[in-house]
């Protein structure tokens, strides 16, 4: 139940984010759309690793080493998401820098104005 809800939310966010990215002509809003979408991806990823009735993959007094395998949820997706988040930030930062650069060239943020290269 829980993972399904989370997953559905995640997918919805992806689609919404993509919709924003595909329809907004403002470059910043496009980038924003992508960040929403990647948040959605992260949610999906984490929800795939979730297992009902288990705890976070940290072994402490509550979760002794011996029954960790029976008590914790899948740690791998979490590790992946961690990486994905950082990478996402990197790409976003890069796109923002590009956006600024584009703005300086044309004094506009309209993506449809940057079409000198085509055909």
């Amino acid at each position, binding site marked *: 139940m829980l993972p399904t809800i989370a997953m*559905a939310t995640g997918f919805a966010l992806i689609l919404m984010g993509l919709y924003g990215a595909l329809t907004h002509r403002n470059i910043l809003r496009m980038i*924003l*759309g992508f960040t929403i979408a990647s948040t959605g991806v*992260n949610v999906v990823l984490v929800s795939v690793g979730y297992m009902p009735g288990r705890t976070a993959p940290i072994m402490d007094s509550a979760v002794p080493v011996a029954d960790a395998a029976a008590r914790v949820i899948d740690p791998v997706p979490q590790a992946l998401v961690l990486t994905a988040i950082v990478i996402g930030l990197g790409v976003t930062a890069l796109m923002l820098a590009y956006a600024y650069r584009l703005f300086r060239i044309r004094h506009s943020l309209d993506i449809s104005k940057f079409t000198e290269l085509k055909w």
Partner: protein
Amino acid sequence: MTLLAPLAAAGFGLAMIGAALMALRARSTAVAVLAAGLVSLFASVLFLILAAPDVAMTEAAIGSGLTTFLFFYVLGRIRREGYDDD
């Protein structure tokens, strides 16, 4: 826990979708950026519910924090150079 967690998740999920809608529909880019930050913030709570505290921390710090700031920086510079998006 069994019922509470899904309910909370559904609530936050809806909140995220709402925030995302706001981010898409908002007239002002600044508002949209804030709304997107909100999406990330809610997401980090959701991660906590999904038993992923590491992810939650990261999402909060990076996804909602730093990313939003980056946007504002760029937005600020662009505005200062005379762009008006509203």
